[in-house]
């Protein structure tokens, strides 16, 4: 197989795989993220869904941008199908690891937001009870 054919095949495999991976991870993360948002914003659906959607758009932009930025494959090292498989494995594998890290980072942000929201509720309750006591 010619070098350019292998390169084209590599791009035609790499692109759909990374796009589908990003779509799947994003859909899963932000489908469940709605519940976190509703909890953080204490049931206010409008702001919860809006924030969720904004973070989802940012997630898509960031990860698809990164996937496309690392698309370049050096054709000199693509001689046979083995090389094709190795190059693709390295690229897709590396991107999967990165996607996993982004997923955990987003989860961390959700949990932190929830913790801060709970802290705010406790502080407000304490403030209210102190107000009643002083009266």
């Amino acid at each position: 197989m010619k070098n350019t054919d292998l390169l084209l095949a590599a791009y035609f495999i790499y692109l759909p795989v990374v796009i589908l991976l990003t779509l799947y991870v994003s859909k899963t993360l932000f489908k469940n993220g709605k519940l976190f948002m509703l909890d953080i914003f204490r049931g206010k659906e409008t702001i919860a869904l809006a924030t969720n959607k904004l973070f989802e758009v940012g997630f898509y932009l960031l990860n698809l941008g990164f996937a496309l930025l690392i698309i370049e494959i050096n054709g000199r090292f693509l001689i046979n199908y083995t090389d094709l498989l190795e190059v693709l494995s390295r690229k897709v594998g590396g991107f999967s690891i990165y996607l996993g890290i982004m997923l955990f980072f987003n989860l961390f942000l959700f949990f932190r937001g929830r913790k801060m929201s709970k802290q705010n509720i406790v502080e407000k309750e304490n403030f209210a009870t102190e107000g009643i006591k002083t009266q």
Partner: protein
Amino acid sequence: MYNFYFDILFLFSMSPIIYLVGQACYKNGNDFIEYFTPENQNITKQINKFLLIGYYLIVVGFTAFTLTFWNDISSLIDLIILYYKSLGMMTLGLAILHYMNILFIYLYYKKS
């Protein structure tokens, strides 16, 4: 000569993406900003509009700017690499701006 057609192709393929992302951010941004400025609907709309205008300026500017790098496209491979790399750079830049906007709005209204 082919460069001209590729430039047009790039611009046309970018346009729906630019528009859709802009609309998604505009609609949800309205609700997001309203949470921080509930007493003044006008401020919400104006901030949101300014963000949308800024977004379009940056994106259209960057799209046109990337065309300057489209000098010698000798093969399909070069086209694919250049096209997707330009798209990647733009989306990554947009992501950074997007998160910065959210952070600034949150921090500004948290302080006040």
